[in-house]
C-alpha cells in the first residue's frame, strides 16, 4: 500500500517538474534558435574555399536525465511496443540544445558558419541496473572564422 502511494507521489512529482521544465526549455530553445539562425550549421563536409577562413573545432554537449514519470511511461511502452513519445521530446530537446551550444561557441569565436556538423550520443548509465538513465548528446563541427583581409 505504501509502495503504491510512494509510486504515485513519485509519478506526480516527476510529471509536475518534468512538464514544467520541458515547457520552459522549449520556450528557451525556440527563442535562441531564432537568435542564432543567422549562423548556419551545415552538414556538408566541403566548406567554401573562397574567401579564406580560419578553421576551429566547436562542440556543444548536453546531458539529459529522464524524470520518473517519463521513465514509467517508457517502461509501460516496453510492454506494448510503439513510439516511446516520452523519450522523443526529451532527446529532441537534447539535440537542439547541443546544436545551440555549439553555435554559441562558434559565435564566441567570431565564426560565420559551422561545417561538417555531426551528432554523437553516449549513454552514461549504460547497464547500471535501476539507476536513472542519462544520455549525452554531443554536436560538433568545424567553425569557419573569417580572417581579416590583408
Amino acid at each position, binding site marked *: 500500500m505504501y509502495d503504491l502511494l510512494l509510486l504515485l507521489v513519485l509519478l506526480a512529482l516527476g*510529471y509536475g517538474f518534468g*512538464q514544467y521544465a520541458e515547457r520552459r526549455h522549449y520556450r528557451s530553445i*525556440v527563442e535562441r*534558435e*531564432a537568435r542564432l*539562425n543567422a549562423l*548556419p*550549421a*551545415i552538414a556538408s563536409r566541403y566548406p*567554401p574555399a573562397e574567401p579564406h577562413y580560419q578553421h576551429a573545432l566547436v562542440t556543444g554537449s548536453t546531458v539529459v536525465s529522464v524524470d520518473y*514519470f*517519463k521513465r*514509467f*511511461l517508457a517502461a*509501460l*511502452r516496453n*510492454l*506494448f511496443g510503439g*513510439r516511446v*513519445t*516520452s523519450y*522523443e*521530446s526529451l532527446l*529532441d530537446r537534447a539535440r537542439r540544445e547541443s546544436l545551440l551550444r555549439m553555435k554559441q561557441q562558434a559565435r564566441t569565436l567570431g565564426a560565420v*558558419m559551422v561545417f561538417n556538423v555531426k551528432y554523437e550520443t553516449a549513454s552514461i548509465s549504460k547497464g547500471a541496473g535501476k539507476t536513472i538513465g542519462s544520455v549525452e548528446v554531443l554536436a560538433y563541427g568545424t567553425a569557419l572564422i573569417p580572417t581579416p583581409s590583408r
Partner: protein
Amino acid sequence: MKYRNPQIPEGINTSDRHPLKEFATLAGGAVLLIVALGWLMGQVAGSLAGLLPFEKEMALVPKELLSSDAGPELQAYLDRLADRLGQDMDLPEGMQVRVHFSGNDTFNAFATLGGNILLFRGLVEALPHENALSMLLAHEIAHVLHRDPIVGIGRGAAIRLVTGLLLGSPDLAVLGSAGIYTQLHYSRGMERAADAAALRAVHQRYGHIGGAAELFNILRAERERSGGGEMPAFFSSHPLDLDRLQTITATARQQGWHENGQATPLPAAFNDWMQDAAGRAAIPEGQRQVRSD
C-alpha cells in the same frame, strides 16, 4: 553560394499527444493484462495443484506447524470428533485429517496442507457446545477434502509469480516460507462448498443443524467486536457471515433439515483442558514438544 538554416516547423520529431492520456491508456492496459494473466495462471495452477497426490502434499508441510498444545484428553477428544466427521464426509482412502490445537488466544482456525487443521483456543473457547465445534471442524475437513489448501497455494503462487515477473521483482521462493501455510485465502466458491459439505456432515451426525448457525453468529459477533479490522482466515472467508447464515437457512429448508435441536454439550472437563492448553502455550517455543505422528 549562400548557406542558411531554414526554420523547421515544430512537432516533427515529437508527438503532441498529452502524456497523461498516454499514461492512462498504457497503465490501464497493463493493469488489465496483469489481472487477466494472473487470473488465468491462477486457475491453471490451481487445477494443476489439485492433481498433486495427497501423499506428496503431506511432505510439503513444515514441521514447526505440527506442534499441538492439547493435553492427551483434549487431543483424543478432537481426534475422535474429526474421525467421525471424516467418516460422515467420506474422506477417500489415504486422506487423513490431523487436528492440532494451539493454546493461543488467537480467534482463528484453519486447514492447511496435508490434512492438517489448526484450531486456536481463542475461537474454540467461545463455542457453546459440541455442535458448533463440529461445524467448525467439518468446515475445515471439507477444505481438506476439496484439496483447497494446495489449490489455494498453487493459485496464490502463480498469481504472485505473474505479477512479480511483470512488475520486475519475481518472488520465486513460493514454497519457501512458512507464512503462506497460515495465510491461506480461499475463494468465495471454496468457502461456500466447504460450508455446504460441513452442514451435511453436521446434519448426518446430530440429526439437526442447530450448532451451525451458532458458529456463524459467534464469528459475526467477534467481527463486530474487533471492528472488522484484520480478519483471520476463517472469517476473511468472503461470503459474509450474514450471507452464510442465510445460505444455511435456505439449505436447511430445501433439504427439510431441522434448524433447531437438542445441542450436545461439550465434555465436562472441557474448560480444564482449555486452561491446560493455555498453560502449555505459555512455555517458550524452544522447549515445546513437537508432535511426531
